């Protein structure tokens, strides 16, 4: 609240002569008139109790004078037209866009930037008049309208207070566009963007609505991990760990990098960073059977969420596939085209190597090679052969079968059209009772899948080369779906690394209704399984998430790795639709006069004075 100022301070001078006049009148009035009465005998007793509290009488008399002077002061003050620059909503309709991105968790402002932004939003909302309306847009991972246009200040205030900051990369662009579209229906609406401005220019944001940029944050004192990968090159004993650290601070920074395998520290280095410097480090670390690797920066900076990064060792996060085939160009090319897949090819697999292969590779594909033994744990795809007694054994030969029915809803066959696939010859599969038939030619099974805890098996009843499937559009889709499904069923539940704010989808075991999500802070969420899938949208903080559904377990980690968010330098202006919007440190102020309140108060004081006077007489 800024200080009170006066529009007409010269009016105050009138106070002195008027007050003097009142006091003079008062003194004149106090001269008692002499009145001779026959006897004061009766008066004496009538006046006795009044005189008994003579000090009170005097006080009451003075009270009248004081009240008169107070009323006069109020009137004169009202004439001087006092005003304050208050952060009232100057538009009838306002949209408040609250940045809840990772950089808003920086601690350079009082509390955090986000807490400061909340205070600014609350200050704006408190200035709402009774006829003003406001909407609240929160920009986390996704921009969303937290409160549509409303006159209910308490609802808006509680929505602002309930908003939590996220570790997501800013989506101010969407939020601003959302606010602009909201404001476009309200002529003269204003948009208050409360942010640190750590986001790129938004050229398409052009509208008639007036945009105010309320800046929070003061400095940039931050060190961030921008890259962290770990991989073991083929035939190497040690893992190579790659780490990129950048300082966004104008001061030199000294920090300790610690690398953990699960929760066990495996390496620690001290590194020094000059102002605004970047360093890339590569370490060789002997890791036996690494799980989730975590890199942590121990440094005194403003933003903590970018001081941690996660990596899954092994094949650099990619799925390792062993392809056992006498040679299949279509399949090899199809697999190589998939992102994040490392394919190892072999012509045959000996029975004694099979167990190690099932353990080391995420998926083992047997193309026209009968698997020597079926594993209990792992993921296996068999093409043109039987897949063991537990899944399906090859049966009768089929000439030019055409696929008549298939399960479109199954994750493997989603978006796959098998209706026109030409197959010259196939072997019908005889599925085991626990296996699931995905596609049939008439009443013969051609694709069979089996799902067990930590085991997934997919079996095709024909050789792909005996069909035109590899030439069809559906083939890469089928391959992607199949590998995704198979790798989900891996032993460790296929660890993932995501960014905060990503929406993740997992396929739950059949007949599972609920899934249990454990958040990085230890909080638990129970999620519903819809159509066999669990959708996770709660992943907006940095850390390790765990999901379990029907005995299956998944684990993934989210880290920031965003130079835009880690650069905490607050923007002084924004480029919105070609226009430059300058930042203001607080909500825009408007002149708020309050002489009517003073006049009302003066009237009230006069009424009180009148009442006291009439109680006396």
């Amino acid at each position: 609240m800024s200080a009170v100022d006066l529009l007409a301070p010269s009016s105050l001078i009138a106070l002195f002569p008027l007050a003097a006049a009142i006091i003079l009148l008062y003194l004149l009035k106090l001269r008692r008139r002499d009145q001779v009465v026959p006897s004061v005998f009766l008066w004496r007793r009538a006046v006795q109790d009044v005189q008994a509290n003579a000090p009170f009488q005097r006080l009451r008399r003075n009270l009248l004078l004081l009240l008169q002077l107070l009323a006069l002061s109020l009137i004169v003050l009202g004439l001087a037209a006092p005003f304050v620059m208050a952060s009232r909503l100057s538009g009838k309709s306002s949209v408040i866009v609250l940045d809840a991105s990772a950089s808003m968790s920086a601690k350079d402002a009082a509390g955090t930037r986000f807490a400061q932004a909340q205070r600014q939003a609350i200050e704006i909302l408190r200035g709402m008049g009774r006829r003003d309306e406001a909407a609240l847009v929160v920009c986390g991972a996704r921009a969303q309208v937290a409160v549509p246009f409303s006159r209910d200040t308490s609802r808006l205030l509680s929505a602002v207070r309930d908003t939590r900051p996220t570790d997501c990369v800013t989506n101010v662009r969407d939020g601003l566009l959302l606010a602009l579209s909201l404001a476009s229906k309200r002529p003269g609406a204003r948009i208050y963007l409360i942010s640190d401005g750590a986001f790129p220019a938004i050229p398409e944001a052009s509208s008639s609505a007036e945009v105010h940029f309320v800046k929070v944050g003061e400095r940039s004192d931050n060190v961030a991990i921008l890259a962290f990968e770990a991989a073991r090159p083929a035939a190497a004993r040690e893992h190579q760990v790659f780490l990129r650290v950048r300082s966004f601070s104008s001061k030199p920074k000294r920090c300790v990098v610690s690398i953990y395998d699960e929760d066990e520290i495996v390496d620690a280095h001290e590194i020094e960073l000059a102002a605004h410097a970047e360093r890339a480090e590569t370490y060789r670390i002997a890791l036996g059977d690494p799980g989730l690797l975590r890199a942590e920066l121990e440094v005194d900076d403003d933003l903590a969420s970018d001081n941690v990064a996660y990596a899954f060792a092994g094949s650099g996060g990619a799925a390792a596939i062993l392809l056992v085939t006498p040679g299949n160009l279509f399949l090899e090319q199809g697999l190589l085209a998939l992102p994040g897949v490392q394919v190892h090819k072999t012509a045959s697999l000996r029975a004694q190597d099979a167990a190690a292969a099932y353990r080391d590779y995420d998926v083992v594909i047997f193309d026209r090679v009968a698997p020597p033994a079926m594993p209990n744990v792992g993921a296996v795809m068999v093409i043109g052969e039987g897949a063991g007694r537990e899944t399906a054994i090859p049966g009768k030969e089929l000439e030019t079968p055409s696929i008549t029915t298939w399960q479109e809803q199954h994750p493997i066959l989603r978006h796959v059209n098998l209706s026109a696939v030409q197959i010259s010859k196939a072997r019908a599969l005889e599925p085991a009772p626990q296996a699931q038939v995905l596609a049939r030619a008439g009443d013969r099974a051609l694709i069979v899948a089996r799902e067990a805890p930590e085991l997934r098996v997919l079996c095709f009843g024909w050789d792909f080369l005996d069909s035109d499937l590899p030439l069809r559009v559906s083939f890469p889709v089928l391959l992607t779906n199949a590998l995704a499904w198979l790798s989900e069923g891996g032993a460790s539940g296929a660890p993932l690394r995501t960014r905060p704010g990503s929406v993740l989808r997992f396929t739950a075991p059949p007949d599972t209704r609920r899934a249990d999500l454990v958040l990085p802070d230890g909080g638990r969420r129970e999620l519903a399984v819809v159509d066999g899938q669990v959708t996770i949208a709660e992943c907006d903080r940095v850390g390790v998430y765990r999901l379990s559904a029907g005995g299956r377990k998944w684990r993934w980690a989210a880290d920031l790795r965003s130079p835009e968010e880690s650069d905490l330098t607050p923007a002084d202006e924004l480029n919105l639709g070609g226009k430059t919007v300058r930042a203001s440190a607080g909500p825009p102020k408007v002149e708020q006069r309050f002489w009517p309140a003073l006049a009302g108060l003066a009237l009230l004081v006069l009424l009180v004075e009148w009442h006291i006077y009439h109680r006396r007489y």
Partner: protein
Amino acid sequence: MADSVTSSERDAYLLSPDFLRKLEQVAIASRKIMVGRTKGERRSARRGSSVEFADFRGYLPGDDLRYLDWNAFARLQRLFLKLFIEEEDLHIYLLLDTSRSMDFGSPTKFQWCLRAAAALGYIALCTGDRVQFYAHARGRGKASRQFRGRGTAPEAFAWLAALRPDGETDLGQAIRWLQLSMPAPGVTFVLSDLLSPDWETAVSRLGVARGEACLVQVLSTDEISPSLRGDLRLIDSEDGRAREVTMGASVLRRYASERDRFVASVHEACNRWGFSHLLTVTDESVEDFILKTLRHLGVIK
């Protein structure tokens, strides 16, 4: 007679001839029978020579033989003496409060009291009673001679006309003085505003006085409902003491309740001592007061 009184007096409080004529029709009632001094028209406690029979008593040597009841002697062979009621005159005392506090109101309480005293005195003179006026203020008491007979009325009026209000009220002292100097028991009228802290002493002394008493309390309209407003310094007309009062509704309310309590306690005290108390306001004409109020109450018959 009445005309001559009227012409010889010029003061405003004079009684009009018409009023005097009306006064000749009435007499002051006395409930008690008292001993008078000379022959009059009042029944006396004494046995005497009127025509009205009172009692018998046994004959004692030396009694007047004219009053022996011979008829009784003829029947009973014993001598009885017939006793007759004696008719004597009655003493009327009129005590006027002449303190300065009486000089207020319109007409002033003092004027009103003079006229009332004159009227009462005239009634008594017309019925052959003895009338004596007392005027009293602190330190200055005056008593008139005893008037008797209608012919003394002009002199009595002149005595009254010479009175002036002055000094402080000391009614207790006045009644004591009256008690000591009254030659015989009679009917005492006290005319005063009674606005004095020692009014209770006065009432009690009046209560133990010989004969009958009647206290006429006269207040002015301003004393009944004062029309004072604003910040005032009230000055007592008698002793000059001042009292600061800011007149307001509440003060006036308190005054009214104080006044009512005062009048009620005076009335109650008079009743306790067994004599009449009459409150009158100077608004009421003396004529109405004498001929209606007093007659209604049985003080005048």
